[in-house]
C-alpha cells in the first residue's frame, strides 16, 4: 500500500521511559491536502471501484494503511 502518505517523526526517549518504545510516531497526510482546487477531467474509477473506495477519483483515495503499530 501507499506508504508515501505517512510522515514519521521521533520523540525524545528517556533512558527511564516506563514502557518499551513505540517508535517512530506517525501521522497521515492524505492526498487531498495537495489537491486544493480539484482539476477538471481527472481520471475516474469504474462505478464498482468508486463504490468500494468511497470516491470517484483514484487520486483522492487514501488507504490509511500503516501496518502494525509495533512495526
Amino acid at each position: 500500500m501507499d506508504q508515501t502518505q505517512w510522515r514519521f517523526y521521533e520523540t525524545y526517549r528517556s533512558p527511564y521511559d516506563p514502557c518499551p518504545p513505540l517508535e517512530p510516531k506517525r501521522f497521515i497526510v492524505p492526498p487531498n491536502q495537495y489537491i486544493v482546487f480539484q482539476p477538471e477531467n481527472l481520471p475516474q474509477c469504474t462505478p464498482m471501484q468508486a463504490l468500494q473506495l468511497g470516491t470517484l477519483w483514484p487520486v483522492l483515495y487514501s488507504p490509511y494503511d500503516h501496518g502494525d503499530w509495533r512495526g
Partner: protein
Amino acid sequence: MWVYEKKLQYPVRVSKCDPQMAKLLIEQYGGADGELAAALRYLNQRYTLPDRVIGLLTDIGTEEFAHLEMIATMVYKLTKDVTPMQLREAGLGGHFADHGYDLYPHNAAGTPFMAPYFAAKGDPITDLYEDIAAEEKARATYQWLIEMTDDVDLQDSLKFLRQREVIHAIRFREAVEILKEYNDTQRVF
C-alpha cells in the same frame, strides 16, 4: 507576565509501564480539585483580594502550573509508547477514541474540565476558605493516587506534590489571619 524555565519543578520518573495509572492521574490534570483548576482559581481571584495577599495568590497559582506540567509528564510517559489496543485494555479506549494520544483536561471519570471549578465568590474570607479546601482536597487526591500505585518513583513525585498542597493550605490559612488583623487595624486615608 511569566518567565518560563524549561525544566520541571521536581523530577518526574515513572518506572512501571502502567497506562491504567494515567487514567487515574488525569484527575489532577483536569479534575475539579486538579492543578489546572487551582492555577486558574488563584490567578483569577487575586485581582479583587486585598493587596496584602495578592502576591501569595500569584505565587501559588504559578506553582500550580508547574505541578500541572509534572502531572502532564507522568501521563505522557505512561501512554506515549502504548498501542491503541493496550490503551483500550487499560480503560483508556474512550480517551483514545476522542483524543488519540493527546492529553486532555478531564477528570478520572472522563468529565471534561469546566470553568465552574475555579470558584470566585468575591468575598476575601470566603475565597480563601475555598482555596484552603481546594488544597486539602488535592492533598487527599494525591494520597489516593499514591495508594493506587506501587511504582516507588512515581510515588516519590506524587509525595512531593502532596507536600506542596499542605504548604499551600498553610499559606492560605495565614492569609486568612492576615486579613482578620487587617480588618482590626485602624486605617486613615
